[in-house]
């Protein structure tokens, strides 16, 4: 009788502990699954970070040898020309927005660059999709200017920004 009681007690205890851990496990799983959207956004953010870190060196943006030995350099003249064919690059990089913001020298307000106002502007919107969260990297935004009838390099401080959609 005593032994039976003990077995019963142990069984109840085991059931209670199993139930408790099962509930805790379910709570953790529920928390994790509710986080799937957050994880998707984080993945997008990571992709954007990876892209922004190497975008300035891609042939579409980089200065190449045109401005000497430059690092993290974006050719503004080239980007302005590429900007005229947005359809060809619609899904090329898999992000919603790519833009270059001139930081220094400071210009008042936000003036988007077009062929008519370039270079007296401060934002080059290369790819325009839905607004999202931005990730950026500093770049030298270089262009050729004419001084005394000869072309010289003019590099300004800018931020290359890539945006991704929040899920």
């Amino acid at each position, binding site marked *: 009788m005593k032994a039976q009681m003990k077995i019963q007690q142990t069984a109840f205890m085991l059931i209670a502990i199993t139930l408790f851990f099962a509930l805790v496990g379910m709570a953790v799983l529920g928390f994790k699954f509710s986080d799937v959207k957050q994880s998707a956004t984080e993945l997008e953010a990571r992709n954007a970070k990876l892209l922004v870190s190497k975008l300035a060196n891609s042939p579409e943006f980089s200065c190449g040898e045109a401005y000497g030995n430059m690092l993290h350099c974006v050719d503004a003249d080239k980007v302005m020309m590429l900007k005229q064919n947005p359809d060809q690059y619609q899904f090329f990089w898999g992000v919603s927005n790519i833009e270059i913001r001139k930081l220094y020298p400071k210009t008042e307000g936000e003036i988007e660059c077009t062929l008519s106002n370039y270079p007296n502007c401060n934002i080059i919107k290369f790819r325009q999709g839905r607004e999202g969260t931005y990730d950026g*990297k500093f*770049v030298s935004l*270089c262009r050729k200017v004419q*001084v005394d009838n000869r072309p010289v390099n003019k*590099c300004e401080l*800018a931020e290359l920004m890539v945006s991704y959609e929040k899920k």
Partner: protein
Amino acid sequence: MISIKKGNKRSQEQKCKILAAKPKRAQEEMVGFALIIIIVGIILLVFLGFTLVNKNKSLVESYEVESYVHSVLQYTSDCEDRYGFISIKEMIVDCSEKKKCADGRDICTVLGTTLEEMLDESWKVAENAHAIGYSLNITIRGEPKNDLSFNKGNLSGNSKGYTSIISKRDGIDFSFTAYY
């Protein structure tokens, strides 16, 4: 007769002892169970707290700091020498040689103003911002140049930095650290 009575008394005492011991054991088991629940609860709370705190952290990436240093050094200033407008990198070398711009301005002064304005435009430091502070230092011949050192915000906690060697011969270094 007396021995039977004595025997009954003894067995009754034993029963009482058993009955008294039973609730004590049950109590001990309950305390054990409660302890397990509390420990698991604490672990769960710590885990939850850790995940929630980590999510809100915005980090300054090393490529941000590195690209900033290169972009600043490559910036074309409004200071001209006889060959044309010079970059910040060239300005630092010229400053160490105490040169002047073509228009007579002191290169070190122009460099200091330009760097300060650049920093203000690119790093908006605040306690809840992307970066909480920064430090920019230029070293010439191993000595930090005080008039070309810029520190702003909270210079403690996590940081990412990058140093560019401008001239090995003259010992000129340009270093920037962002705190987050």
